[in-house]
């Protein structure tokens, strides 16, 4: 019985054993020559036979493509999934309910690029090859990675990035769908300063400490906070910046409390804020609001947007009831107040059969993604109305879609879910202070929408009075 190898070698037309050395050299030379000639001739033939580029079809395209860079396995892994879900769901809802934009379905191309600049650039190029009209990204880092390329290609980026440097000075490429850092931070500071802390009764101004991860997003609110503190007589007692993902904040927390902080602004990401809250509880720093204000050694924790969400709060349910944050979005039970929330709730029930049951469905993050796609779709629709499908490209969406865009229907937020405000590209600016609703595992708005003065939207600021750990760009 011959082996397979023997059978193969015994084939007359290809018996390697019988090939002489000279024959081998000839075969190799022929193969190499063929390969080289092919490489040179094929592109020439391709160039000769290629049809002249045709003008854009006057009719509608098969689909309109939007690119999305997300981070499902990197540093933002715990907050990105609901944002992506909301982003895709809005497009799906639009396609199903309204047949897309002007009858053209929206196609979302997305990639998990793990906060990696090289992967982000590669995915951007892949999407560009597939003719995306608008890009979107989940974070400041990813937006920075593709900003230069998008500027050169004139493809707008509608992003969740909150770092002010992306918008200051304002460009026509990067558009914020989310609240920028000063908005999310100062909403809470102003709420505490004007509605909680009674200077006359307490006999002094209040003191604040800042605890942040050492990344662009979490430090982005510092300049505005420093400026507001200086102008309003609030004392900064310490700025603690730690590398992500630190899991023990006890030293930093103790230092801030020992320095006399009444409030600690916790600017962390993912479940770390839950860990920090747990440690505050264990250290005896937490108490109900009134008691915390009146008792030395107790503090009020104010949380930034990415810290104040379901996974971090469920990591420390006993401590979460003492925490405060903000929300630019309507809550799921506010469907009578916001048409967009009703629309979104209806869609969730239709698609999932329920609303808000898991970490992946974190409401604030989902709304952020939902609203981002809504802004993009509105901009495309507006641009199509102005220039038609035949002339639709990134530049048209910038000039005729995003510039001057104001979304006033089907809102998931306050007066405006998105508006192209004069002088910057911060599209969403109305924010409410919020507490944590443990029963509904979502943010519970506790005040009216606020509009933070634009003078605090600064990318850098040096405090007049230095303090320990002061961070200045």
């Amino acid at each position, binding site marked *: 019985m011959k082996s397979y190898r023997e059978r193969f070698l015994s084939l007359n037309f290809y018996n390697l054993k019988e090939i002489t050395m000279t024959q081998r050299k000839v075969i190799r030379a022929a193969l190499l020559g063929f390969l080289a000639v092919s490489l040179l001739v094929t592109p020439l033939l391709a160039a000769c036979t290629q049809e002249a580029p045709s003008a854009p079809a006057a009719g509608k395209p098969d689909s309109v493509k939007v690119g999305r860079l997300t981070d499902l396995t990197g540093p933002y892994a715990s907050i990105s999934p609901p944002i992506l*879900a909301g982003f895709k769901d809005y497009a799906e809802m639009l396609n199903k309910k309204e047949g897309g934009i002007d009858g053209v379905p929206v196609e979302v191309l997305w990639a*998990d*690029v793990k906060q990696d*600049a090289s992967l982000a650039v590669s995915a951007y190029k892949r999407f560009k090859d597939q003719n995306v009209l608008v890009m979107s990204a989940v974070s400041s880092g990813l937006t*920075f990675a593709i900003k230069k390329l998008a500027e050169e290609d004139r493809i707008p980026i509608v992003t969740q990035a909150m770092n002010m440097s992306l918008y200051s000075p304002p460009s026509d490429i990067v558009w914020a769908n989310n609240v920028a850092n000063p908005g999310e931070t100062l909403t809470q500071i102003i709420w505490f300063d004007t509605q909680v802390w009674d200077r006359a009764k307490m006999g002094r101004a209040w003191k604040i400490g800042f605890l942040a991860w050492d990344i*662009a997003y979490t430090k982005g609110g510092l300049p505005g906070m420093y400026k507001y503190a200086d102008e309003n007589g609030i004392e900064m007692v310490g700025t603690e910046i730690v590398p992500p993902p630190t899991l023990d904040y006890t030293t930093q927390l103790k230092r801030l409390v020992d320095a006399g902080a009444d409030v600690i602004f916790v600017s962390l990401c993912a479940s770390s804020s839950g860990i920090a809250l747990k440690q505050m509880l264990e250290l005896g720093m937490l108490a109900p609001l009134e008691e915390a204000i009146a008792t030395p050694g107790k503090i009020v924790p104010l949380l930034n947007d990415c810290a104040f969400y379901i996974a971090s709060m469920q990591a420390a349910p006993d401590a979460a009831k003492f925490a405060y944050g903000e929300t630019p979005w309507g809550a799921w039970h506010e469907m009578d107040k916001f048409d967009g929330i009703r629309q979104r709730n209806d869609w969730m029930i239709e698609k999932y059969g329920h609303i808000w049951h898991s970490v992946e469905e974190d409401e604030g993050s989902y709304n952020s993604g939902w609203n981002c796609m809504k802004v993009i779709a509105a901009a495309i629709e507006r641009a199509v109305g102005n220039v038609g499908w035949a002339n639709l490209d990134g530049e048209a969406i910038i000039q005729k879609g995003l510039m001057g865009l104001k979304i006033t229907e089907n809102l998931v937020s306050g007066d405006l879910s998105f508006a192209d405000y004069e002088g910057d590209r911060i599209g969403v600016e109305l924010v409410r202070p919020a507490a944590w609703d443990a029963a509904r595992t979502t943010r519970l708005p506790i005040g009216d929408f606020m509009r933070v003065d634009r003078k605090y939207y600064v990318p850098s600021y040096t405090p007049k009075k230095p303090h320990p750990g002061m961070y200045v760009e």
Partner: protein
Amino acid sequence: MLPAGTFNMSYEQDMAIIRTRFQWGAFITFLIALFALPLYVSDHWLTLANTIGYTLVAMLGLNILTGYCGQISIGQAAFVGVGAYTAAALGHHLGWSAWATLPFSAITAGFIGLIFGLPALRVKGFYLAMTTLGAQFMILYAFNHGGKLTGGITGLEVERPAIGGFVFDSEEKFFYLIMIITIVMVFFAKNLVRTRTGRAFVAVRDNDLAAEVLGINLSYYKLLAFFICCVFAGVAGWLKIYHIGSAFPDHYPLMDSIWWLGFLIVGGLGSITGAIFGAVSYVMLLEWITILSPMLGNWFPGVSHQLFAALGLLITGLVIAVFIVFEPRGIHHRWELFKLYYRLLPFSY
């Protein structure tokens, strides 16, 4: 091993990297294919080729340090960042042209690497890995807190390189720039390991005590390996920043340093070809996973996207683990076996 019937008759022949007509033919064909690539492929594939280019330069440096000299570094991504930030700072603050910043990127990264290589004089193995890990954190901290010099959290943008009116502003143009520099760096690395210095590196790696007894200055060669490794990193950083257009602290993460080390093993630690295999397989695997995970998510809508995205990390880790267990000499070793089989044909069995 030379092909059957080929004998070295002179010193030049003995030293030649490309020895036979077939090898010359294959080399020239490869160059033609490589430089004709922009005629065939889209921007996306050129981006991947460019990413492979600068990743390869960084991994070549790491290979010289770890594969040849036996010194572990988990800070290579940060050293790449040093090269990138040097170019960005000189270009952004002093208005230097990209070309003028290239040697400074390389040298600055080299000297910074030299500083973090100093512990290698006293410690090795796991402990050295920990000190270079420290470099990764310290350097990223410096990027984040460098004030106006580094741009802090906002990073620095750079202008595209240009020669006269010819601006390297497309993927195609960058492809030629990156490939030429990558080929030069491969050539340099290939030759370096065949010199007295390269042999000294190998001696230090195999047995440092024996190497010292033979008269090799351990301190000098260990530091030299760090310097050269980081010079490569600096060049890689220069390529990366001009390719992307901006330097940002998040662009040089710890995981890059770790994956590069892992994929050097996959490619073949201690061989230039291995570094090439490692860089290609690393970039292509990540890209494949990035493309595959949304597809799986769309095919199985009931399953979380995050699960499929996490498959990427699992697969990447699994590939390294499988190679360490079953083929610790990497793809390079398989490639050598294949060449050996072919050269011995028809007597290869």
